[in-house]
């Protein structure tokens, strides 16, 4: 119990340090957040055009797309605003920077993933309530549920990013491949997955958990299906546990980058 409290304190301090660093340059922080918000709104405008021409998409309306887009933006924003270092784990493995974290008296993973905050993620987080309110016409109660669903999605995203970034443990030249895989995951997971054949849906709910990021949360919210919401929460925990296990397996194969004496 004390161990858990200790870890929580440690993670809290890491997050605080990363956030302080992120907002140190206010102009940069505001610019990046604003531009991210603008690009999200531009992308969503395509769906507004779609629904100005068509009444529905397989039973989905603009409100549902707003939920989907908002959840995806919120989840990606949260994941990388708080845990931006997860995107650089692969490069740390290849560059030997992992040594610095191995030299610390804690497990290297929290230090690695919480070391940096991606400031643009704040723009993503801000996009969500605006899209949910303006286009989804939701009140505060709904926003709370959508936020909770978004947090589960953020865990799935973080787990996936971590798993992709562990590939360089097994093939050192795959750090660019990790970036590409994550980019593909981002593209696929933020699109509606209506009308997919069963086999594709199974893949998107297992091997590549893109279906858990936005599609399942929106379906659970639309139909107020508590079972699906529980499934999402369970999947978030399971994928995170798998990603940590994958990291630990990879860590056993890691050969030092000879930077053990570097102190940070």
């Amino acid at each position, binding site marked *: 119990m004390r161990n858990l409290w200790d870890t929580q304190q440690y993670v809290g301090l890491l997050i605080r340090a990363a956030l302080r660093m992120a907002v140190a340059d206010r102009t940069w922080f505001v610019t990046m957040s604003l531009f991210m918000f603008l690009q999200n709104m531009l992308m969503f405008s*395509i769906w507004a055009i779609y629904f100005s*021409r068509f009444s529905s998409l*397989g039973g989905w309306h603009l409100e549902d797309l707003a939920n989907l887009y908002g959840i995806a933006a919120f989840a990606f924003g949260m994941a990388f605003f708080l845990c931006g270092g997860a995107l650089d784990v692969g490069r740390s493995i290849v560059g030997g920077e992992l040594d610095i974290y191995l030299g610390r008296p804690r497990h290297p993973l929290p230090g690695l993933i919480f070391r940096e905050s991606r400031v643009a993620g704040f723009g993503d987080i801000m996009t969500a309530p605006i899209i949910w309110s303006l286009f989804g016409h939701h009140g505060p109660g709904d926003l709370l549920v959508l936020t909770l669903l978004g947090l589960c999605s953020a865990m799935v995203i973080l787990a996936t990013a971590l798993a992709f970034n562990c590939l360089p443990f097994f093939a050192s030249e795959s750090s660019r*491949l990790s970036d*590409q895989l994550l980019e593909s995951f981002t*593209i696929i997971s933020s699109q*509606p997955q209506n*009308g*997919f054949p069963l086999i*594709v849906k199974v893949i998107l709910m297992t091997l590549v958990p893109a279906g858990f990021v936005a599609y399942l949360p929106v379906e659970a919210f639309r139909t107020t299906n508590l079972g699906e919401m529980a499934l999402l929460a369970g999947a978030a925990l399971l994928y995170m546990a798998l990603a940590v296990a994958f990291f630990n397996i990879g860590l056993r194969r890691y050969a030092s980058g000879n930077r053990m004496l570097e102190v940070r």
Partner: protein
Amino acid sequence: MMSLRAATGFVGLGWRRGLGERVLIAVPIVTYALLVAVFSSIFKATPLDELPFQIRVSAPELIWYLILTEMITFTGGYTFQEVRLEVLEGQFAASLARPTSYFAGKIWGWLGQTVLRVLVFFTAGLVLGRFLSGTFLDWRLLPIALVSVTLGAFMHGVVYFSLALLEVWGPYARPAMWISQKLCFVFGGLLLPISFYPGWMQDVAWLTPYPAILNVAGRLALAPSRAQLFWGISCQLFWLGLMILLAFGTQHYAERKLLATGT
């Protein structure tokens, strides 16, 4: 001015670089296929009979439209990161000492690389389109589609060059690229043909280079007339020329900034 021999050398270099990235091109192809599959399901579920008669299209036509437009975003977008990193790592500054223009070297290299990527994606796109739409693109349009997609992808790369060079003035390249990319998706008609848009939006879109990048190639899937084909390619060549001039201009000012301030 670069000699023809040097230009050919750069084209060959770009082609060989493309060949060397066989594994790295596999992931974008799978993503491309998945994305087209996602939207083919969406188009099949879309009540297309709600469209006004003048702009009515079928689901297979829309699928082919998307296959062509998405192909351009996947084949032409790689230049941004390359140039941005070269600016950050000082390679752009180092290029000032070389006898050839940085952009001229890049543009010929990209031509070789883009042609190779387009050929790979075009082949994949044809197979994918047949599988997902159940129809085939009119074979008489295939050569012009290949040219139009290549022009679109190349133009996409040239636009990204100018945006990446903004890094010389400060960390503005990435946010500028995000906005330009999304404007391209909206005004270029990445997912839906521009003819679906409200009138005022169509007018605004055609004032930008984005329809020449995406929509012109995509429209080949919507049974264009001979006049539309001619107009489309002319439009692409016009905007490509303008974007190349803009890229040379941006490079000129970036070089001046580097020479004046040293960083």
